[in-house]
């Protein structure tokens, strides 16, 4: 067994929270640039230019790209040959979020109770998704998630007879209903299959995929392309002012499901498609 002190996890989470909020990765910047070049509508081009300028200002000055520095969504792939010492994983992760959001001047956006709504003051607790994997490494991904886009996400339990067409129609209708609200151009994470809870997680994990890749399954790679084309024919455009660039990318993740079901979830992210990872 490899021993790993959880303070290393705390330190990694803290710095990833800050890095993800200040810097878009190269794939996201490249995707934005490519979509801006394809855009031919003047008001849309103007908005995309402002978005590019903001990315430069945030990176240079080490400022948050967006004032909604999000709920800290944290994904850990824990090698089952790792023995964690010095405390619990959950406490270590929350301490990392607390430190990252406080020392990094990030906004604290979490309320302790959904109805009584008192701010916890340090952006904890994190939304932690833990997966045990083979090996002796620990992979940590921090994806701060803003709620302007989260609020526009939808889930639907379709009948199997709805098929691919039903899935695609639902995804497009969710994007159209969201309109200007989630700060388009958006990234669309789609989960298909699993069950009610699993499908929502699939959609969120789809948002972690790099924006310059394609689905390894050609069947779903084609569906991603088809969906992106339909979404970018809606005319909503950057910020909803009209234009081609409503979405930057559609990513699909799937899982086995029940003979009676076809769950679909659409998790929307804005153009500030933030995530940062490290392997310990």
């Amino acid at each position, binding site marked *: 067994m490899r021993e790993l002190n959880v303070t290393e996890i705390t330190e990694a989470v803290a710095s990833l929270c800050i890095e993800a909020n200040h810097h878009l990765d190269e794939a996201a910047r490249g995707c934005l640039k490519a979509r801006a070049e394809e855009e031919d509508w003047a008001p849309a081009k103007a908005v995309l230019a402002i978005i590019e300028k903001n990315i430069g200002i945030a990176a240079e000055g080490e*400022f948050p790209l967006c004032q909604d520095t999000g709920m800290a969504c944290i994904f850990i792939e824990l090698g089952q040959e790792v023995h964690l010492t010095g405390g619990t994983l959950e406490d270590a992760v929350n301490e990392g979020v607390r430190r990252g959001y406080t020392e990094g001047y990030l906004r604290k956006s979490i309320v302790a109770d959904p109805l009584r709504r008192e701010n916890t003051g340090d952006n904890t607790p994190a939304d932690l998704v833990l997966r045990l994997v083979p090996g002796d490494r620990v992979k940590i991904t921090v994806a701060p998630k803003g709620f302007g886009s989260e609020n526009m996400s939808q889930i639907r339990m379709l009948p199997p007879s709805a098929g691919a067409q039903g899935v695609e129609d639902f995804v497009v209708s969710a994007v159209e209903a969201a309109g200007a609200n989630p700060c388009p151009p958006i990234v669309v994470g789609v989960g298909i299959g699993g069950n009610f809870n699993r499908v929502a997680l699939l959609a969120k994990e789809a948002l972690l995929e790099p924006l310059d890749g394609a689905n390894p399954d050609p069947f779903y790679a084609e569906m991603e392309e088809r969906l992106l084309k339909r979404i970018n024919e809606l005319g909503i455009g950057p910020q909803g002012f009209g234009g081609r660039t409503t979405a930057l990318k559609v990513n699909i993740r799937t899982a086995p499901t029940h003979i009676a079901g076809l769950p679909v979830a659409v998790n929307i992210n804005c153009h500030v498609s933030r995530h940062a990872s490290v392997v310990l």
Partner: protein
Amino acid sequence: MEYRLTEPFTKEAVRNLRAGDQVLVTGTIYTARDAAHKKIVEMMDRGEKPPFDIADSIIYYVGPTPAKPGNPIGSAGPTTSYRMDAYAPRLLDAGQLMMIGKGQRSAEVAEAARRNGAVYAAAIGGAAALMAQCVKSAEVIAFPELGAEAVRRLYVEDLPVTIVLDTEGGNLYEEGRSAYLQRT
């Protein structure tokens, strides 16, 4: 069209702005989000004076990140406006001049803006570091316990916004989309 809007902010100055116009705002504006709107309306219900004069005011829907040392404010882009729809007509009827946020509004808000000669403008969602550079000073003037959601008085220079709802019922989200779809 591109315009500059400077103090004193008046109904007269916004009356001819149309959906789609780009406006650079310079002057004193106020921040308020969901929790502050709720408190302000409750104060008005109790007959108390709100923390700032609502008449001819510009309210920016923003909850900024904490300011780094040496900066007046942290990143400061718009939050989604529909969450303020329940309160906005009340403030518009009290004379509010402009709402700055992003995203769709209810029919009630659009109608309240029209009947009061007020406008709704969108700032670029997600361009928060860029917009922070337009904020020259910031001061919490009410509800400090709300943290990011406290009411702040800001002095902004050339804050870039786009008119979405104008005084004649124009709506950029509808018009911009249909203009793009009908392009030749």
